[in-house]
């Protein structure tokens, strides 16, 4: 047999030798988890934490959708509704989406994919998780003791002067969790530079690693600006130093510039890792090298770079000059190009592939659809004249949910299902997986597509009650959200079920290519029994007999 990526799989699990202590069986005490320096265990800690946060954020979203079933604000009070959308946004952005793929899949896979034993700084990696937990603690305190109503964007002077809620604890939460993401970024960048196995050149890296690298750069460079901005906000709110509040001599628009200087790149922190996952999944389930590997790799870096230059498109109706509006509109169109390049290359990868529509691939194809719609509607918003009308309406809500939920969350689920056998050593029931992917796809479209129409009709965002003519579309959206909720809940059950009852996965159940599939599932604590030496290109199939030369 010349293609050795598959041969290990041919040995039935029952006959296989015990793969040595896996990272899961390497200690069963609580301390062995909470004090672990193993990147794989830390990934699991993150996985559990962000799953909890995802459910919490989802609860707030669902309550909002329930409220919006009727035009009158009759389920929640205005203040409660305002708190719910604020906490939905804060939790989903800072405690779910930003850490989602990097801190779980990235943490787990980056060292495996480059043939390393761990990240460059295992202790710092654990520190990142503790920072996340401390930040989340502040966040949960706010949730439990009355909430916050500023909107996740904290616009001044509302947040510094007018809001009477827990603004400071929640900004501290975001401030602290920011350090978690800076440290993760730092760790990934150093690891990618210094810890690659012999022979693993830059252009042999899986595209997931490229996208993690680009993401990490953005995390390191943009997050400090958020920290500074939030600190200034806290200083103004507590010490009444005039920075943003015009009553104190500050400038409220300055806050928006500083906030979006982080928060627009943050969108790319959320979507770039997803793009990396999709590259891996499409390559694996088409059994092909990704078409235009270098273009896909460099488009990640291009997105990371251009993503820093488009922040003021959030301010197009805030009174910036028409000339700076033009520049930011131009740059916003520019950032769409590398994204388009990725979509074209993914599509072209399917050509003459050997395609199977397993669960991860279904999620990935769903991602393509959502990302297409989300990206193309981004063009609507970048077009200046049109943005004047749809700014701050449900059109924007629909657009960024297509990217951040349709895109990033679908990719997260694609990745979770793709690498679940590697992480857990078990296979989930394929039927339920496919069902969940399809339910999610339908539910998502039903939830968010009507919101494009709502937005163009003029329904502003963050409205607790609305004028009656918007009701039909809102009812559709709420119905969709119910379906979507089922789609998101299903994996929780069958994935947990598979931990105990799932079939043993074996090393490489998908017959995918990549170093992470060359070690046992779940991998041993040291990842590889011997350091692999890479002699093949990324995604190269029909490999020579000896895959890993013993080093």
């Amino acid at each position, binding site marked *: 047999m010349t293609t050795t990526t598959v041969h290990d799989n041919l040995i039935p699990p029952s006959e296989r030798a015990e793969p040595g202590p896996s990272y899961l069986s390497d200690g069963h005490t609580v301390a062995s988890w909470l004090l672990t320096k193993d990147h794989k265990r830390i990934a699991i800690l993150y996985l559990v934490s962000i799953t909890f946060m995802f459910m919490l954020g989802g609860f707030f979203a669902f309550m909002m959708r329930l409220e919006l079933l009727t035009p009158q604000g009759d389920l929640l009070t205005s203040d409660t509704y305002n708190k719910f959308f604020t906490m939905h946004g804060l939790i989903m952005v800072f405690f779910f989406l930003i850490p989602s793929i990097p801190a779980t899949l990235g943490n787990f896979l980056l060292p495996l994919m480059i043939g390393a034993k761990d990240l460059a700084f295992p202790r710092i990696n654990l520190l990142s998780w503790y920072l996340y937990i401390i930040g989340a603690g502040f966040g949960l305190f706010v949730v439990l003791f009355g909430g916050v109503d500023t909107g996740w964007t904290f616009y001044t002077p509302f947040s510094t002067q007018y809001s009477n809620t827990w603004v400071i604890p929640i900004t501290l939460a975001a401030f602290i969790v920011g350090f978690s993401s800076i440290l993760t970024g730092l760790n990934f960048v150093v690891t990618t530079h210094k810890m690659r196995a012999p022979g693993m050149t830059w252009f042999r890296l899986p595209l997931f690693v490229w996208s993690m690298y680009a993401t990490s750069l953005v995390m390191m460079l943009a997050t400090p600006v958020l920290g500074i901005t939030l600190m200034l906000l806290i200083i103004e709110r507590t010490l009444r130093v005039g920075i943003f509040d*015009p*009553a104190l001599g500050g400038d409220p628009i300055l806050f928006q510039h500083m906030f979006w200087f982080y928060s627009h790149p943050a969108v790319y922190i959320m979507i770039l890792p997803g793009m990396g996952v999709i590259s891996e999944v499409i390559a694996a389930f088409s059994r092909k090298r990704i078409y235009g590997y270098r273009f896909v790799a460099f488009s990640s870096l291009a997105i990371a770079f251009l993503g820093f230059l488009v922040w003021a498109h959030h301010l197009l109706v805030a009174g910036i000059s028409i000339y700076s509006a033009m520049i930011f509109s131009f740059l916003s169109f520019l950032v769409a190009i590398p994204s388009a390049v990725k979509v074209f290359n993914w599509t072209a990868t399917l050509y003459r592939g050997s395609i199977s529509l397993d669960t991860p691939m279904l999620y990935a194809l769903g991602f*393509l659809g959502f990302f297409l719609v989300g990206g193309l509607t981004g063009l609507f918003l*970048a077009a200046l*004249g*049109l943005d004047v009308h749809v700014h701050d309406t449900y059109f924007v809500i629909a657009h960024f949910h297509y990217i951040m939920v349709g895109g990033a969350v679908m990719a997260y689920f694609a990745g979770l299902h793709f690498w679940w056998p590697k992480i857990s050593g078990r296979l989930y029931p394929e039927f339920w997986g496919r069902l969940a992917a399809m339910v999610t796809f339908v539910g998502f479209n039903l939830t968010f597509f009507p919101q494009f129409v709502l937005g163009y009709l003029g329904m502003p965002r963050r409205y607790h009650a609305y004028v009656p003519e918007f009701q039909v579309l809102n009812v559709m959206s709420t119905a969709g959200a119910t379906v979507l909720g089922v789609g998101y809940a299903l994996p929780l059950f069958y994935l947990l079920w598979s931990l105990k009852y799932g079939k043993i996965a074996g090393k490489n159940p998908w017959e995918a290519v990549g170093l992470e599939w060359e070690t046992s599932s779940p991998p041993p604590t040291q990842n590889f029994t011997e350091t692999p030496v890479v002699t093949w290109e990324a995604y190269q199939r*029909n490999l020579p007999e000896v895959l890993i030369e013993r080093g």
Partner: protein
Amino acid sequence: MNDFPLFPRQASTIAVDIDRIYIALVLLCGLTALAIVVTIIVLAFKYRRSAVGAYSPEVSAPFWLEYIWTTVPFFIFMGIFFWGAWVYFRAYRVPEDATDVYAVGKQWMWKFQHEGGQSEINDLHVPVGRPIRMIMASEDVIHSFFIPEFRIHRDVIPSRYSFVWFQATKAGKYHLFCSQYCGTDHSKMIGTVYAMEPEDYQNWLSGGVKGSATEEGEKLFQSLACITCHTGDSSGRGPVLAGLFGTTVMLSDGQRVKADENYLRESILNSTAKVVAGFQPIMPNFQGQVDEQKLIYLIAYIKAMKAPDLNPGAGQQTPTGRGSANPLVTVPKEPGQPGTNSAGGSMTTVPAASPPPATPARTSTASPGSPQE
């Protein structure tokens, strides 16, 4: 309206332009998305594993494809960019002959002040067929002035004026939404815009008005003792204000600024921020003493002060077009009688103590019984 509309009504001159981009983009993007989705489905079916076997051949990639799908989107995007920018320019570049209406946003209501003296809360009456410029400020947090049927949208910010203009094309009632989250009752900060045929609008204008904005401003100008320094002649301790609006002012630090609404606003509230060359920074700050409503009155009054032809050397101002292109409702009558005030005469008593070079010219406009068409 039908029960399931996909578009808001088109009720302003700009609405058509914006809908055109929208429809073009829906078609362009819809077809692109459809083409890609169909391609994906066809490929996924054609090259399904059960049909093609477990292994895929290595395909040598034609490199030029990459360049095509990088450059073609670029040129298409540039086309959309220029189109969008062109409409944006139109949406925010105010026509010279626009009528000013002042708006103040506060938690959670809209206040409107017409220069003729009418003030309204949450209702805004405007004529069809005439450009209206909104001069907007917030008393507290950031709000946003959004009328979907007019396709216009502009944030309303504390501490400065922002502007937006529109020209209604259809009489009717339209929603005015606050679209920037502003606290508890954000979703109740909804006003109604009444676009009226010109005759109806005139009828509305002539109903129950106390005094025009400029008259109110004049009273404030005296009660706040502005008049003691801004005496109106060049010997005063403050600069001459007559004819100031719309001109370029030389500051003591050598900079030049345009005397627009935001400049007047800042000079009243925080006078030392920009001191006119040749004057001492002795003016008190009125921050906290003058609320948004009073500020509107004062600015309307200062804008209405006309430069006297007799005294062209006073100050550094050179009259420009904008100063006179800031009409109240009697626009058509204006050009014929610059500098004098024969039309109404209600303001002729202005500065009782000083010789009046600061004779406001266009003040009588919409007070009841003034000559209107």
